[in-house]
């Protein structure tokens, strides 16, 4: 098969028609360069095993150009693929040393790309197959039906269990608001230890089911106190004695005891 012959054909009007369709419908729906290439291949009704590099490259580059014109950010991966396509195209324009009837797969510059595309497509389809299964919590249920798996999957009504990152973030923004001048030498008598803070938090929790972040850390406190409170909360998290929740990203943080009210023995402190 002489693949070079296929590389010549270009069809300008059809290209532009395709572009309009891209512009209206598909512009932001590609997962990446491979996804885009598969789309172009399908759109041009090409056999993936024998794609016209010239045609595909031209359309691909046009697409990138449209993205740029619309000021949309283009992931670097798209540009890497553009370079790959151009490289393949240029390799195919080079003259072959010996006239051969059958070109071995290794000599076809498109081979690696085609292999990658086919492999990618396989997983893309596999993903769809998996998604079409009956999911626990959606089509299939167990007796303990409010399934924690699915609850954490959809960010909808259930409050999110926050990671420590949100806690750090909350403290960072709080500390930012407190001017540094407030940090002064504290007399020994006023030292508020982490142990004290932990006790304070735990006793607050015994009376109430949950405490809001803003109640624990008041803005008129010293930086020292805020830092101590932060460390106390970290320690309580580490000991798995409290859990952190948030109703939605950026919304206030809540702390609830991880263990139901039981006489809690003094945690081993630093």
């Amino acid at each position, binding site marked *: 098969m002489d693949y070079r012959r296929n590389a010549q054909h270009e069809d300008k009007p059809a290209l532009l028609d395709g572009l309009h369709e891209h512009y209206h419908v598909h512009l932001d729906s590609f997962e990446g360069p491979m996804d885009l290439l598969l789309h172009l291949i399908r759109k041009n009704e090409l056999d993936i095993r024998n794609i016209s590099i010239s045609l595909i490259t031209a359309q691909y580059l046009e697409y990138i150009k449209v993205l740029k014109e619309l000021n949309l950010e283009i992931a670097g991966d798209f540009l890497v693929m553009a370079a790959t396509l151009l490289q393949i195209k240029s390799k195919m324009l080079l003259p072959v040393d010996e006239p051969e009837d059958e070109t071995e797969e290794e000599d076809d510059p498109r081979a690696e790309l085609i292999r990658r595309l086919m492999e990618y497509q396989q997983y893309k389809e596999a993903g*769809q197959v998996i998604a079409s299964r009956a999911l626990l919590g959606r089509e*299939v249920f167990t007796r303990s039906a409010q399934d924690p798996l699915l609850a954490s999957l959809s960010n909808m009504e259930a409050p999110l269990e926050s990671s420590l990152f949100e806690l750090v973030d909350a403290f960072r923004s709080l500390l930012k608001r407190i001017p540094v001048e407030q940090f002064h030498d504290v007399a020994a008598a006023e030292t508020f230890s982490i142990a004290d803070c932990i006790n304070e938090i735990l006793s607050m929790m015994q009376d109430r089911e949950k405490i809001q972040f803003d109640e624990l850390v008041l803005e008129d406190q010293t930086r020292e106190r805020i830092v101590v409170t932060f460390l106390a909360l970290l320690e309580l998290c580490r000991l798995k004695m409290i859990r952190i929740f948030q109703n939605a990203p950026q919304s206030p943080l809540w702390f609830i005891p991880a263990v139901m009210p039981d006489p809690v023995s003094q945690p081993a402190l630093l």
Partner: protein
Amino acid sequence: MPLHAILESILFTAETPLSLDKLCDLLPEFDRDSIKSAVTTLSENFDNRRGAIKVVEVAGGWQLRTDPAFQDYVARHLKTRTTKFSQSALETLAIVAYRQPITRVEVEHLRGVDSGGVLKSLLEKKLVKILGKKDIPGRPIIYGTSRDFLELFGLKDLKSLPTLKEIQALDETPLFELQEELPLGEKSSNSPSTIEPALPFGE
């Protein structure tokens, strides 16, 4: 009291699928074969009832689950989640599921895009887990799917993942329209033909 009834009581009150090993631990007075056969009896009983509950083999164990045919009725009372996965999440999940153990770089090479964000998200949702680190320079993290993944998608083990056939031409019927489960094939290292999961599931 019949063993299958005992198993029924245990499975009904269990929160997660119970494996044969676990059941044997719970019922030392019975032998393994009896328990195994009683599970089959229980399962057949449920099937014969023509009810809504089935004994399902999932994540290496058994669990009582409702038949998907009844989802609309269940939804009337329960607030069910209309969970939709993004395409990148699905692709990535499929890649990790079929190719585990796998590193992030390998995932990115297959997808052609940066995958750190998706992997992190799947980790947070506990569908993917860290298996360890690869013993090569850089010691990259190795990923695999979790038990939660099996439970969510109703899979007995990794071998039960639908087999991927040889890539079809793009204009043929897409894979997901085919209903039948295909026989496991050989894994070929040179071409993207039939793929089977790299690791037998074990926990």
